[in-house]
C-alpha cells in the first residue's frame, strides 16, 4: 500500500505540485473531443466485454437471416447474401447505436461528469468523444460482418473500394442516429425504460424496410412507408455502392437525413445535458 510519509513532507510535496503548475492554453473543440474519445477507448480497453455486442450480433444476424430466408426468398443463400448483406449491415449497426444511449446514461450518472461539467471546455465534446469511439465499435462490427460475408460467398460488384465507401456512409448515418439515443439517455431516468423505448423505435424502423424483402411485395400502404424509411434509403444507397451502381439520390438523402439528425438532436441533447441535475 502507500508509504507512510511524514506529514510535513506531504505538505511540502503538495505545495510543490501546486506551485509548479503553469496554466496552458485552453484546448479547442477538436482536441477536447479527441481527449474524450481517448477516454472512451480506454474504457473499452479496461472492459473489453463491451465489444461483445459488436462482434456477436453481426455474426448471429448474418448467419441467422442468410440461412433462414435465403432459400425461400432468393432461391439460394449465396444469391440472397449479395442483396441482404448490406441490409443486415445497416440493420445491425443501427441496432447497436442503441447501446450508445445506455452506456452514456450509465456514465453520466457517475460523479466524474460533475467534474467534466465544471471544466472550462467545449461541452459537447463530452458527448462527441464517446460517439466517435462508438464509430470505432461500429467499424469493428462492419468488419466482422464483411469478413464473414466474404467467407460465405459475398462478392461485392464494386470490390473493396465500393464496400469501404458504403461502410463510410453507414458510419456517418450511425453517428448521427446515435444523437437520438444520447438525448433519450440523458432524459430518461432508467436504463430499462430507455432500452424498451429504443427497441420500440428500432424494430419497426429496421424491419419495415427493404433489408429482407423487396418492397414491391408489400401492401401498398406499407410500401409507401418503406419508401420514406431512412434505413431503407440507407440500404438502397449501400447496395448501390457495394455493387457498383451508386444511387446518387439516395446517398444525398442519407447525408441530408444525417445532418438533420445532428442539427435537431445535437442541440436538444446539449440542452438536456445542461439541465441534467
Amino acid at each position, binding site marked *: 500500500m502507500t508509504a507512510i*510519509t511524514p506529514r510535513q513532507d506531504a*505538505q511540502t510535496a503538495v505545495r510543490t505540485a*501546486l506551485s509548479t503548475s503553469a496554466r*496552458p492554453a485552453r*484546448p479547442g473543440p477538436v482536441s477536447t473531443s479527441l481527449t474524450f474519445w481517448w477516454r472512451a477507448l480506454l474504457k473499452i480497453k479496461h472492459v473489453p466485454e463491451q465489444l461483445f455486442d459488436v462482434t456477436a450480433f453481426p455474426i448471429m444476424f448474418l448467419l441467422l437471416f442468410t440461412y433462414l430466408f435465403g432459400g425461400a426468398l432468393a432461391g439460394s443463400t449465396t444469391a440472397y447474401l449479395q442483396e441482404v448483406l448490406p441490409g443486415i449491415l445497416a440493420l445491425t449497426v443501427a441496432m447497436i447505436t442503441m447501446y450508445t444511449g445506455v452506456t452514456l446514461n450509465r456514465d453520466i450518472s457517475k460523479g466524474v461528469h460533475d*467534474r467534466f461539467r465544471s471544466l472550462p471546455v467545449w461541452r459537447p465534446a463530452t458527448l462527441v468523444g464517446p460517439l466517435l469511439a462508438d464509430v470505432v465499435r461500429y467499424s469493428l462490427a462492419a468488419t466482422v460482418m464483411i469478413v464473414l460475408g466474404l467467407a460465405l460467398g459475398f462478392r461485392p460488384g464494386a470490390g473493396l473500394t465500393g464496400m469501404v465507401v458504403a461502410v463510410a456512409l453507414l458510419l456517418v448515418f450511425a453517428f448521427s442516429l446515435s444523437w437520438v439515443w444520447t438525448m433519450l439517455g440523458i432524459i430518461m431516468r432508467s436504463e430499462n425504460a430507455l432500452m424498451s423505448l429504443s427497441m420500440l423505435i428500432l424494430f419497426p424502423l429496421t424491419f419495415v424496410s427493404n433489408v429482407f424483402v423487396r418492397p414491391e411485395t408489400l401492401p401498398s400502404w406499407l410500401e409507401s412507408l418503406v419508401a420514406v424509411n431512412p434505413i431503407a434509403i440507407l440500404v438502397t444507397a449501400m447496395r448501390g455502392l457495394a455493387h457498383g451502381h451508386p444511387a446518387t439520390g439516395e446517398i444525398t438523402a442519407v447525408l441530408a437525413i444525417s445532418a438533420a439528425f445532428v442539427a435537431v438532436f445535437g442541440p436538444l441533447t446539449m440542452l438536456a445535458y445542461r439541465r441534467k441535475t
Partner: protein
Amino acid sequence: MPPHTPGDLDGVALQADPLSAAAAAGPTLAIEASGLVKHFGATRAVDGLDLRVPTGTVYGVLGPNGAGKTTAIRMLATLLRPDAGSARVFGLDIVSEADAVRSRVSLTGQFASVDEDLTGLENLVLLSRLWGYSRATARTRARALLEAFDLAAAAERQVKTYSGGMRRRLDLAASIVVTPELIFLDEPTTGLDPRSRNQVWDIIRALVAEGATVLLTTQYLDEADHLADRIAVIDHGRVIAEGSSSQLKSSVGSGALHVRLFDPAQRPFAEPLLARALNAPVRLEADPAALSATVSDAQRVTQALSELSRAGVALATFALGQPSLDEVFLALTGHPAEADIDDGPASTEEAAA
C-alpha cells in the same frame, strides 16, 4: 433552549475581525451570493442563501444532511442554475459568465468525481489534456501529482481498486491539475478513516498556504472547527448563523461555568449568591462541592466569582468552558447537527447528486 432567530446573530457577523476588515477594504471576495434559491419539485433545497467568502480563506458550510449544502455548492460551481437570486465568483456571474468561472474554480464532488474504470494515471492525464497540456507534459504533470499525493505506487491500478482515502486523494489531485483560485470540496472527509482524514486536512491546509480559497461543506463540527476560518451554519437551505468558530460559540452564550467549593458545607449559601450574580439558574452537581451554570455574559462571571470571594466562599477550582459547535448547532436549530433529519431535501439532494 429555543432556536435562535437569524436576527440574534447580526451582531456576530459585524464584530471586528481581521478577515471581514480585509473584505471591507478591497474587492477581495471569492464568492458573493445573495438570495440563491433552488427547488426540486415542491422542495426548496436552497431557500435564499447568502454567502460572502473572502479570498485566501477556508470557508466552512456546516449543516446536517439535507440542509442544502450540496445543492448550494453545485450552483456556485456552475453545475446547477439557480431558480432565483444571484452569485458572483471573483466578481463573475455564475450564470452569464459560467465559462469564465469554470476556468478559475475546481470541484471535488461528494461522490468521487474520478473515473473508476480508468487507472489513477489515466485519470490525471485525461484531466491534464482537458486543461490543455500537450501529451508529454500531461504525463509529466500526472506523474508529479501522483507522487505528491502519495499515489505513485498505485498509478497503474484501476481506481475501483483504490481505498476510500486513496480515491479522495486522487480526487483532490484531479482538482489541482491546474492551480485553481477557488476549490469547492463537498464533504471531503465523509467516510474516511482518521488517518486519511488527517491527510486530507493537510492537503487542504497546503492549498490555502499556496493562496487558494477553499469552500468546504461538512457535517462534522470538529472539521469546520479545525479547518475553517469562517463558518456558515445552514439549515433548510438558508444560513442561520455566520462567523468564526469562536464567534459562533460566543453567540450562543459563553458556555458553562463550573465551580467547585473548598467546603461542601458552604454550597447552600453559595448557590443563591451565584444565581443572583449570574442572573441564571444554578445547578447542583452530584459532587456535593460542585455547582454549575450556563452563562450568557462572560463579564458576569468575574463579578460573580469576586462576590463569592467577598462573601468568604473559598473556591477549590473553577472553569469556564466554551460551548462545542454541537451545542451551538443545537441552540441555533433546535435539533442536533449529526442526526439525519428525515425530510424532503435529503432525498432530493441525493437524487440531484
